């Protein structure tokens, strides 16, 4: 293995940070769309209205984390981006269709320029496309972990269906959807009025259970489809404490919800999901695509990395306070 540039390591962490924040914010917006699809019963209209009201002001900002991840990736790790773009072309393209449709449908619906019959159609498109996006994004994450995608002298040799079509990758896709739905349900429970809070709390419990089942299923399936990942999950010293912590925060989330404190549950569920992302990142063990594309061989020109790191640091000084202000205006203050 080559010596790994310390700036490459730093940028790898930045990438992980961006991915975590996308999951916690943009992911939750996708989950909220799925919740509007599954909303049933007499209060489904109010549920949908609450969902829309909650995400309309912030979804575009949340969504930028995905662009952030892509840009950091191709600037700092261009080889990884090129390999990913070829090997995962199909699921990425499908996820993008979801991204386009949901964003457009949400805005068409939310700004209410249409009579209600036509607006219903946008609500449905928004909900369905919100559901398929995390599925395909999840299969990309699962697919790069399998080791099925092989690269020889910079060229992908395993075609366009390797990895992401395995049962493991599919389970990761479903798990992503479950976790995003969980995030959305908890966030919404904190924002909704008392009656709707119960509905969202129910959804959160359900998502937590489904998520746990899928997490176990993916873990056991990785033994066959993603052996290197499985070995890391089994054999690493960080693994057991991390998984216990994840489970601990899951239980804490449920307890806080059951005690009617969804405002605090928001923070514990965010930690829970972030730990899942961190666990995956650690289990990837410095790989972008297992086994051939690594932190050591996918890095950009070394002369680029320090400047890029500095630019990202300076940008964050502007960005993070602005983001905090946005959430303060729309999420931390009471409802208008």
């Amino acid at each position, binding site marked *: 293995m080559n010596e790994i540039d310390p700036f490459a390591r730093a940028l790898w962490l930045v990438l992980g940070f961006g991915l975590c924040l996308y999951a916690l914010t943009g992911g939750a917006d996708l989950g909220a769309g799925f919740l509007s699809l599954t909303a049933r019963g007499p209060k489904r209209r109010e549920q949908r209205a609450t969902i829309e009201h909650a995400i309309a002001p912030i979804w575009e900002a949340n969504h930028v984390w995905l662009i952030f991840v892509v840009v950091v990736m191709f600037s700092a790790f261009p080889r990884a981006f090129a390999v990913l773009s070829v090997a995962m072309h199909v699921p990425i393209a499908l996820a993008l269709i979801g991204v386009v449709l949901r964003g457009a449908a949400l805005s068409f619906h939310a700004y209410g320029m249409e009579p209600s019959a036509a607006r219903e159609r946008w609500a449905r498109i928004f909900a369905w496309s919100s559901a398929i996006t995390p599925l395909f994004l999840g299969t990309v994450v699962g697919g790069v972990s399998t080791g099925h995608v092989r690269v020889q002298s910079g060229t992908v040799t395993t075609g366009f269906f390797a990895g992401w079509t395995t049962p493991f990758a599919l389970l990761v896709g479903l798990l992503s959807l479950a976790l995003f739905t969980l995030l959305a349900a908890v966030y919404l429970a904190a924002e909704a009025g008392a009656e709707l809070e119960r509905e969202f709390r129910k959804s959160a419990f359900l998502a937590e259970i489904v998520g746990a089942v899928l997490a176990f299923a993916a873990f056991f399936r990785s033994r066959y489809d993603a052996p290197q990942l499985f070995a890391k999950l089994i054999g690493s010293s960080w693994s057991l404490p991390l998984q216990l912590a994840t489970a601990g925060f899951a239980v804490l989330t449920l307890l806080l919800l059951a005690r009617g404190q969804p405002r605090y549950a928001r923070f514990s569920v965010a930690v829970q999901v972030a730990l899942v992302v961190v666990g995956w990142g650690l289990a990837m063990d410095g790989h972008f695509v297992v086994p051939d594309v690594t932190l050591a061989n996918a890095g950009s020109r070394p002369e680029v990395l320090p400047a890029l790191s500095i630019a990202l640091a300076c940008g964050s000084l502007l960005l993070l306070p602005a983001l905090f202000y946005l959430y303060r205006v*729309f999420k931390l203050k009471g409802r208008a």
Partner: protein
Amino acid sequence: MDHLLAARLQMAVSLGFHILFAVAGMAMPLLMVLAELRHRKTGDVVFRDLARRWSKGTAILFAVGAVSGTVLSFELGLLWPRFMEHAGPLIGMPFSLEGFAFFLEAIALGIYLYGWDRVSPAVHLASGAVVALSGLASGIFVVAVNAWMNTPRGFRLDAEGRPVDVDLWQAFFTPAFPTQAAHMAVAAYTSVAFAVLGIHAFRLLRDPANAFHRAAIAVVFPLALVSAPLQALTGDAAAKHLAAQQPLKLAAAESLFRTEAGAPLLIGGWPDLAQERVHGGLHVPKLLSVLATKDPNGVVRGLADFPREDWPPVPIVHVAFQVMVGCGSVLMLVALWGAFLAVRRRRAADHPMFLRALVSCGPLGLIALEAGWIVTEVGRQPFIIQGVMRVRDAVTPMPGVWVSFAVTSLIYLALGSIVLVLLRRHVLSAP
């Protein structure tokens, strides 16, 4: 038709679609801020209503721009993985900065659109200003990337053709950057201003006393008046840059086959590649030399100076260039007409002829914008990085790009039509 063509068409459709929404995201916030400022200064609520209604329309445009921009950031890799592998490090800086600018834009827009009753009027106005400024900045950063593709700098190729010794500043501030960024930024304001003027003039023709649409024209027209002449000035600078740094593109745009001293400016006409001459068109003696070199007898290089396999598709570049310059000139004349009316102390809104002219000019700015991008992008063919990498060497190995091209086109066609229907309804429901 082949794989490469499908990939190129998909890129063209994606860019051509996105750019319309991108310029709206750059220019509409400025108009909203100007209207809100007028409201604060005059206390007239009509200007606040105007800002609110514009912000509602902008919200849709911005959303479609955000998602189609996301598609583009992925498409760079999905369609051109080899390009990104080589160019990623070199264009990473402007793209990263663009990412932050876009982040700020999205955050501030959320506050602007939904914060009317949640933040103080001063904060609201400030958030609008942040949207306008970061929109401008992100446009300029994206153009920096394109300018690098046109005049690549800041690296050296090693024996295997990989870029080494990367200098990010040189890669950022390339020769094409200043003129291209200026021309594009002004184009965003010109095209959007005239589109908005066209819409309000249309309503005003039917309802001449309407205070709302009069207010709109009062806010937008000054911007058009400043930007249309600036468009010509920056265009002139861009032409001089082309003559010096991208002579092949200029030769294609003007269908100049042979290198000439005292070259004439060709208006219209059709280039005949087989006979290497131009059919028809109007030749204005020595004007091209004046525009390109400031010297009536200056030498302008022709297509014949370059190997045939490096020529872009000359007819497309030529026609697009004529369309861009033609539309731009009409807009400038209409802007000057408006200035003349203002000097004569006549209200533009009371002048039906002028309003009719504004209505017919509504689409011209956007048409010129698209044509300009065709000049710069098709004019760089067959290269994706001028002189360094050909488009055919950058394309994805993925088979069946036709399918994704068809799907992309259909989705964008549908979205575009829906946006038009919604905006039409929005406009018709205006007071």
